[in-house]
C-alpha cells in the first residue's frame, strides 16, 4: 500500500485514531510519519529513556520533565546521594543511578519505582557467595524451614528433627 500523504513511498506506519468513538485509519510511509507531529517519531521522540523518565516524574504529579516545577517538587528533587553526589533530578533525567549506595540513599522512591517497573520489589534469585554470605545462609534456613514443615505434615518426624538440627546449626553460624 502507498503512503496516503505523499502517494509515492510504501506505507510502513499504520495509525488508528479513535476520536468521539469514530475510528479513522491512516497509512503512512516512514518519512511522512516523521513529519506528523501527533506521532512524534523524531530522534528526540519515543525512546525507552523517555518512558522511564515519564515513570519517574509521574511520581511528582508532573507529566513531563519540563513541566513547571512547584516548590515541593524542587525540595524533593534536590536530595543527593552522599556517596557519589548524584541528585534525584539528574537520575530522573537520565534513568541511570550513580552507584550502588544510591539504592539506599533514595530507598523510598527506588522501592516504588522498582515495583512499577517489575511489578515486584523483592529479589528471589541467585545470591552471591562473597557479598551475600549471611543472606545466602538465611535463604537456606528459610528453605529448610519449609522442608521441615512439609515433613511434619507428612508425619515424618525423624526427618523433621534432622532438619530442625540443621536449621539450628545454620542459625548459630549467623550469630557468630
Amino acid at each position, binding site marked *: 500500500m502507498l503512503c496516503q500523504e505523499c502517494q509515492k513511498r510504501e506505507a510502513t506506519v499504520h495509525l488508528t485514531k479513535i476520536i468521539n468513538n469514530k475510528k479513522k485509519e491512516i497509512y503512512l510511509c516512514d518519512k511522512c510519519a516523521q513529519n506528523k507531529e501527533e506521532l512524534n517519531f523524531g530522534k528526540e521522540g519515543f525512546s525507552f529513556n523517555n518512558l*522511564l523518565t515519564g515513570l519517574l516524574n509521574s511520581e511528582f504529579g508532573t507529566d513531563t520533565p519540563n513541566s513547571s516545577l512547584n516548590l515541593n517538587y524542587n525540595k524533593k528533587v534536590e536530595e543527593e546521594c552522599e556517596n557519589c553526589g548524584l541528585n534525584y533530578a539528574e537520575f530522573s533525567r537520565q*534513568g541511570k543511578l550513580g552507584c550502588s549506595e544510591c*539504592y539506599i540513599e533514595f530507598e523510598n522512591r527506588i522501592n516504588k519505582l522498582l515495583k512499577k*517497573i517489575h511489578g515486584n*520489589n523483592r529479589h528471589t534469585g541467585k545470591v552471591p557467595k562473597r557479598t551475600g554470605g549471611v543472606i545466602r545462609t538465611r535463604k537456606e534456613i528459610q528453605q529448610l524451614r519449609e522442608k521441615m514443615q512439609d515433613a511434619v505434615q507428612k508425619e515424618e518426624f525423624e526427618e523433621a528433627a534432622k532438619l530442625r538440627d540443621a536449621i539450628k546449626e545454620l542459625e548459630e553460624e549467623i550469630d557468630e
Partner: protein
Amino acid sequence: MSITGKINNTLNKWMKASGPDPDVVISSRIRLARNLMEVPFPNYASDKEAKRVIDKVESLLEEEDNDFGLKLLDLEKIPVLEKEVMVEKHLISPEHAEPGQHKAMLLTDDESVSIMINEEDHIRSQILFSGLQLEEAWELGDQVDDYLESKLNFAFSEEYGYLTTCPTNAGTGMRASVMVHLPALNLSNQINDVLRAISQLGLAVRGLYGEGTEALGNIYQISNQVTLGPSEEEIIENLQGVIKQIINQERNARKRLMKQNKVELTDRIYRSYGVLKYSRKISSKEAMKLLSDVKLGVDLGIINDVSASIFNELMVLISPPALQRLTGKDLNSSQRDEKRANLIRKRIREK
C-alpha cells in the same frame, strides 16, 4: 591470511547452526549485569575508578585459574572495523564499540562467553549458544559468574538483588533472549498477533540489532522484560515455554503453507535462490530478505544443495563492516553491493 581463513575467523559457534531446533531458533543468549560494590557505576566513575575495575578483573585472571579460557582485550587497542564485526556477531554492544577510555572485554576462543567491562554496568557477561539452549547457557553463565565473584565484590542487596546502573535491570540482572526466524508466520500474516501475545506475557520483542531496529530477514529477538522478582530459573522457564509455542506455531504455519500454497511458496523460494545465485550487485536489505526465503527452503527440504548454516553465516558476513574487513579496504556502498553479491554467490556454491 587467505579469504577462507578470514571468513572462518569471522564465524563462531552460533552461526554454524549446530544447536537444537535450528529450523526456527538461531541462538540463545544469557546476559548478566554486575557491578563492583566499591566503585561508582561506569557513567559516574572517574578515569581512575574505571581503570580500577579493569585492574581488578586483570588480577582475578592472574590469581584464579579459569577453565573457561577467558582472555582480556583492551578495546582501545582494537581497530574500529574489528569492533564493528564484534557488534555484528553480537559479542559487544554498539555503544561499547564506540571509542572511549577504559573499555575492555573478556572473551573465550570459541566466543561463546564474552564479558563487557565498563559498559553501562561494570561487568556484563554474555553467553551465546546456537539454537534453543537457554538452560545450558544459564548453567555456563552461572559458573562464569561464580568465577568472577570468587575475587570481585558484587554490589548486592537482600531486597533488590544485584544492583545495576539502570533499575530496569536490578534483581537477577539477567536478560535471557532467543533469536528466532519466523518467515511462515510473516507470510501467513499471523506475525503481529503472535508478537502482540508475546508482549502481553511480559516479554519484549525486537528486531535483529536490538531495540528499535526492524526485523530484517524475519528475525526477531524475544527476551524477558522483568528482572526483579522471579528467580533466574523461573525467568528461563517462562521464556522457554513461550519460545516452544512459537516454534510450534511457526512449524504449523510452514506445514499449512506447503499444503495450501505449495506452488507459490516453492516458486518464491526458488526465485530468491536464483537471484542470490546469479546477482552481481545486492543491498544488504534485499540480501537478508532473500536469504530468509532460502533458509526457509532449506529447512523445508525444498533446497538441498545449500548447507543449513549458510543463512546464519551470511547474516554476519554480508554486513558492511564484515565485508570491509574481508576485503581489507574502505568500500563505498556500490562497491559493497558488488562484493556482497560475489561473496553470496561463492558461499552458496561452496556448500
